[in-house]
C-alpha cells in the first residue's frame, strides 16, 4: 500500500511538472524535501536520547507498572493481548498522555519505545503488524488533543483577538475522530480474524 502511494505521488509529480513546463521544480522540491527530512531526524536525536534515558530510569524503578495500574480498566479493554505490567503498556500510556497535552516531541520517542515493546509481544510474523500495534496506532494518530499549542502560537502571531477560541472545537473534532478510530479498529480486527480480507 505504502509502495503504491509513494510511487504514484512521485510519478504524477514528475509528469505534471513536465506537462506544466516547470521541470526545474522536480529537483528543487526533491532536494528541499530531503533536506528538511534530515534536519527533522537529526533534531530528534537530542530529545530521543534524553527521553530514552529517562524512560530507562522509570522502567528500572518500576514506575511503568504504577502508571499502567492507574488506567488499567481502559487499557485492558483496548489492549487485551498486552500483559498489564509489561513495559509496552507504560510506554503506550505515556505516549497517549503526551499526545493529549499536545507534546508531540515528547510523544514520538515514547511511541517508538511502545512499538519496540509491542514487537517483543508479537507472537506471529515479526514483519506483520500485531492487533495491539494496530490499536495503538489507531489511538495514536487520532488522539484527543486538548492543547493544539502550535496552532494557538500561529494565531497569536497573526494577531488573533481570541487565539484560544478554537480549543473547544478542536477537542470536539478530535474526540469524534478518536471514537471512530476505536470503533473502526474493532470492526476491522473482527473482519480480519474471520479471514475475509488478508
Amino acid at each position, binding site marked *: 500500500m505504502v509502495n503504491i502511494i509513494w510511487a504514484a505521488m512521485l510519478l504524477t509529480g514528475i509528469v505534471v511538472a513536465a506537462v506544466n513546463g516547470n521541470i526545474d521544480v522536480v529537483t528543487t522540491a526533491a532536494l528541499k524535501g530531503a533536506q528538511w527530512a534530515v534536519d527533522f531526524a537529526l533534531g530528534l536525536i537530542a530529545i530521543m536520547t534524553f527521553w530514552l534515558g529517562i524512560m530507562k530510569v522509570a522502567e528500572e524503578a518500576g514506575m511503568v507498572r504504577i502508571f499502567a495500574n492507574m488506567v488499567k480498566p481502559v487499557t485492558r479493554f483496548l489492549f487485551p493481548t498486552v500483559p498489564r505490567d509489561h513495559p509496552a503498556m507504560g510506554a503506550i500510556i505515556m505516549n497517549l498522555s503526551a499526545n493529549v497535552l499536545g507534546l*508531540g516531541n515528547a510523544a514520538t520517542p515514547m511511541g517508538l519505545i511502545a512499538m519496540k515493546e509491542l514487537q517483543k509481544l508479537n507472537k506471529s510474523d515479526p514483519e506483520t503488524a500485531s492487533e495491539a500495534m494496530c490499536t495503538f*496506532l489507531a489511538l495514536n494518530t487520532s488522539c484527543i488533543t486538548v492543547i493544539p499549542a502550535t496552532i494557538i502560537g*500561529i494565531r497569536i502571531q497573526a494577531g488573533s483577538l481570541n487565539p484560544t477560541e478554537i480549543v473547544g472545537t478542536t477537542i470536539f473534532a478530535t474526540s469524534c475522530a478518536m471514537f471512530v478510530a476505536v470503533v473502526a479498529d474493532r470492526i476491522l480486527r473482527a473482519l480480519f480474524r474471520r479471514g475475509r480480507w488478508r
Partner: protein
Amino acid sequence: MVIHWINTVSSWFIPFFLLAVFLHGSYKKIPLYDTFIEGAREGFTLAVRLIPYVVGIYVAVSLFENSGAMDILLYPFRPALTFLGVPEEVIPLMVVRPLSGPAALGITAGLIEKFGPDSYIGRLASVIDGSTDTTLYILAVYFASVGVKNPRYSLPVGLTSDFSGFIAALLICQMVFA
C-alpha cells in the same frame, strides 16, 4: 478558566513527570545516572535509523505539491465541495494533513495569514489542523522502526478516523463560528 487550567497542566506535565521519575528512582535505590546513560545510548541509532523513511516521504509530498499535481487531484471534487459548503481553500489542508505535519502547518499558517486568524476560514483551518495527526507518516515511521512491512488494517482505520475528524471539524465550526 478551563483554558488557563489546561495551559497550567501543559507546562507542568514534563517537569512533574521528571521529578516523579527521579524521586521514585532514588526511593527504589536505582543508580540514576548509570541507568539514564544505559537507556540514552539507544537514542542516536533510533533517530538515525528513521532518516531514510522520513526523506522518502517528504520528497514525495514536496514533489506532489510543488509540481501542481495536488491541484489537479482536487479539481474534480470542487463542485461537490462547494455544494456542501466546504470552503475550497481548506481542501489542500485536508489532503496534506495525514501526510505531513509541517506541510499542513505551512498551509494552515498561509490560510491564517491570508484570511485573518478570526475569519471563518482561519478558524476552520485551525480546527482541521488540530483535528488529527500525521497518520500516514506515523504509520510509516512507527512500523519501520520495528521492521513491520505488512501494516494490515491500520491504514484504513487511520484514514477513516482522519476523515471523521474533518467532518466533525466542519460541522462544529459551522455551528459555532458561521
